[in-house]
């Protein structure tokens, strides 16, 4: 019995503090969790909404779409349908990711209602080199602009070319070919898979 007492004398502070901090942290978490979740959603809607100006709401599809993410892994992609006030479908948006020059790149990609043309992409998170790869994050920069209206099929990256012309050829950022290529690769992998799946589910029919 005295052993227990000795233990308690030595350790009560730790035990009590653990309890108190545990409770306090849980409360803080509970209080802020919704806001944190909303921040993420906001970021998505802000980016996707920027690309699809008519969209008022983004509705997730009932089932996720499997995409082969390379290295034998398959990811389930949640695809959102963008609808305007009247409930009309104005486009599609989803999150995709792949490895860039330094670290993972996470993108939001949007396409038009028929999934024929891309509406552009936005960067959720990337860790590319400042001054090089991070030029992909510049909203409205020459690189991002090339994707607005580009065909929702296979894109190719070229080193030199006309960046103004909107077509399947994407001109790389000079000195950051790897990042440029990574973005194109991510899009190629996801866009065709998503598009195929939507078509299969018959969701791309004219409304």
């Amino acid at each position: 019995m005295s052993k227990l007492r000795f233990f308690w004398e030595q350790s009560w502070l730790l035990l009590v503090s653990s309890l108190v901090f545990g409770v306090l942290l849980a409360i803080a978490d509970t209080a802020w969790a919704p806001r944190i979740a909303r921040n993420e959603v906001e970021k998505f809607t802000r980016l996707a909404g920027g690309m699809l100006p008519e969209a008022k709401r983004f509705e997730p599809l009932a089932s996720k779409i499997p995409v082969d993410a390379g290295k034998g892994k398959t990811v389930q992609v949640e695809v959102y349908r963008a609808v305007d006030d009247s409930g009309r479908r104005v486009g599609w948006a989803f999150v995709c990711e792949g490895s860039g020059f330094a670290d993972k790149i996470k993108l939001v990609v949007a396409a038009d209602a028929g999934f024929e043309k891309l509406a552009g992409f936005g960067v959720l998170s990337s860790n590319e080199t400042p001054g090089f790869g991070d030029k992909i994050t510049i909203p409205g920069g020459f690189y991002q602009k090339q994707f607005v209206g580009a065909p929702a099929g296979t894109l190719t990256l070229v080193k030199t070319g006309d960046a103004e012309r909107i077509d399947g050829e994407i001109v790389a950022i000079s000195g950051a070919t790897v990042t440029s290529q990574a973005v194109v690769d991510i899009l190629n992998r996801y866009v065709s898979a998503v598009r195929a799946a939507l078509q299969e589910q018959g969701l791309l029919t004219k409304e």
Partner: protein
Amino acid sequence: MDTFETLLLGFLGIVIVNNLVFTKFLGTCPYLGVSGRIDMAFGMGCAVTFVLALAGTLTWLIDYFVLIPYGLNVLRYVCFILVIAGAVQLVEMYVRKFFPVLYDSFGIFLPLITTNCAILGMCLFINLWGIDNLPETVVLSVGAGLGFTLAICIMAGIRENLELADVPAALRGAPITLITAGLLTLAFMGFAGMIR
């Protein structure tokens, strides 16, 4: 075979290409402090590698089997650091008591490691990168430790030379070590993008 390749590439990547010290600024304090002599640096490196392997595994287990399933993300930091600090303290006492020789060559570095961000940082990165299996966790942890060892040994070699160099008085010690560290990261950029 495929998993083996993934593990190998991940390992090489974390040792050389995404070296904690050169690219993530982790463990800078001992990198600057304990790199005066090569033998010390090597001892420190071994200790970090050991603790990283231990901490990486323990925290991954807690994360994967307790924190994530029960939605207790909020407790991640507290749990991680408690586990690291407790385990390190325990190992230190144990080694000191039962393996005094081992303690002298690398155990003495153990207390230094609790407050070293390479450990906690790597545990957090493993979570951040979404590593979802134990083998990869262990390989990455050990690799990160070896990467640290490499970096600190190189630095120690350079510093042993610098000690006898005509460095301006104001720059002796930490400043020139930092500048050297900067040039080292520049050199190791050569490995950039080799493995990702």
